[in-house]
């Protein structure tokens, strides 16, 4: 079977030895088992993220994403552009949509792009890797490679914000999206019901307003504990980092004893598909996902 081809936009945090280095590693087994080929866009740049608004304004931010889209169009014509990072996806998709709806904005944007020797035609579609899995591969196919079902493990599927809002995955409810729970169940695990599934982790304000953000994080981790989760699963690099990294800070300040592993859905899939702990990037956890490692080691 020939592999499905996509123009791939990894994003800054997924680069080698960046904060989501392990995430990108865990994608490898998933790609291989599901016959997906991701063709990295040459010389891609940062999407500007949400926080770019403060200094970047509107058009410079749109230009950043338009450059990536233009590079995808040029180098991999006919392929959808796929991101693994929700913020990258949001910025790219929003740019593609706004520019295709507004011709004067597109003209302005192309005027800027010309400085980098590019033109955006508005043809490429910006998608998230989760959309590829659900819409192009499908739940049945996703289940087929499972050789080590994650039986007995309870996961709090933490969807967070930007895969869910404003665009959403596969037309799901913004208040109670189900795709992540279904992914957990596809891997043979149990998705616990808890009330912080789509709570914001604080995003970039984890840096600037640590106390406010840590209150969000505390709510999320506490609820996962209260509902019996062994670990938290997320599709988002920033969610993963914020919710994992700051547990020790919260423990220090508030006397809690949080030690809840936070992993990516792709790490679950890799282990369920028979990958090693290293292939799954489990060595990248600050809080070790021991129960998952145990299954990987079987």
């Amino acid at each position, binding site marked *: 079977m020939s592999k499905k081809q996509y123009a791939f936009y990894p994003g*800054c*945090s997924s*680069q080698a*030895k*960046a*904060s*989501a*280095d*392990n995430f990108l590693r865990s994608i490898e087994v998933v790609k291989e088992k599901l016959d997906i080929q991701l063709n990295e866009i040459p*010389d891609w*740049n*940062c999407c*500007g*993220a*949400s*926080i*770019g*608004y*403060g*200094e*970047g*304004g*509107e*058009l*410079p931010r*749109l*230009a*950043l994403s338009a*450059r990536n889209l233009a590079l995808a169009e040029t180098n991999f014509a006919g392929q959808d552009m796929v991101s693994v990072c929700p913020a990258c996806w949001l910025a790219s998709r929003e740019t593609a949509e706004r520019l295709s709806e507004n011709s004067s904005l597109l003209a*302005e944007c192309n*005027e*800027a*792009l*010309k*400085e*980098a*020797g590019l033109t955006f035609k508005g043809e490429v579609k910006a998608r998230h890797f989760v959309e590829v899995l659900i819409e192009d591969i499908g739940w049945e196919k996703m289940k087929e490679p499972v050789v080590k079902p994650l039986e007995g493990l309870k996961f709090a599927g933490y969807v967070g*914000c*930007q895969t869910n*809002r*404003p665009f959403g995955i596969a037309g799901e409810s*913004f208040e109670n999206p189900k795709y992540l729970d279904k992914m957990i169940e596809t891997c043979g695990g149990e998705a616990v019901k808890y009330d912080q599934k789509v709570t*914001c982790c*604080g*995003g*970039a*304000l984890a*840096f*600037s*307003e640590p106390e*406010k*953000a840590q209150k*969000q994080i505390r709510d999320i981790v506490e609820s996962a504990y209260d509902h019996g989760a062994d670990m938290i699963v997320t599709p988002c690099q920033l969610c993963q980092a914020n919710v994992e*990294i700051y547990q*020790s*800070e919260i423990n220090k300040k508030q006397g809690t004893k949080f030690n809840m592993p936070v992993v990516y859905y792709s790490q679950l899939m890799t282990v369920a598909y028979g990958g090693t702990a290293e292939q799954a990037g489990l*060595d*990248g*956890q*600050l809080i070790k996902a021991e129960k998952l490692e145990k299954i990987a080691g079987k």
Partner: protein
Amino acid sequence: MTTANEKAIAKYKNDFLREVEANVEDGHWVKMCMQCGVCAGSCPLGPHWEHSPQKIFMMIRAGKREEVLKSDSMWMCTSCYNCIVRCPRKLPITHIMHGLANYAHRLGLAPQGQPTREIAKLFWDNLIKTGRVNELKFSLAMYFKDGFSQGIKNAMAMQSIGLGLMKAKRLNPLELFGGHACKDKSGIQKMIAKAREIEDRRRGLA
């Protein structure tokens, strides 16, 4: 020399709504708010906003220019997009808040030392240098934004986390010396400069 702020005041007199419509991202949506307050109730950092988005829309209509632009409310936005998906009038509230914050920042009216304003600037400056974000330099820049001695304290406080990330191969100390970068750095920088030039011209900030 008249500042951009003075020019804007002169141009729009007391019609702040028109000013917002012309100069703020998605500002033309402000007039469509029906004052239901769902945005205010949906914001994760809601209690920390001095004026909720609902109130900000009302203040814009009431011409409260200074109060809005000098407010640190918009800087409380975490970009969670809850307000956007719940607004019954489909106002792109997150974008409007971003736009207002950026406009206030560019006019020099946004609160000095507002931490989110500062990290937003640091982040942007960081990414523009190479076209990609250098997480280590960004972190260090953040720690030192309040001066050298505070920076050492901040860095020490987060030291264990930093070491943990390094151990987990998620933070590369070598990033301090170069690190990831786009090849066409200069093309990207020229592109951004051009985009800003166009936008500033449009908004009277040139």
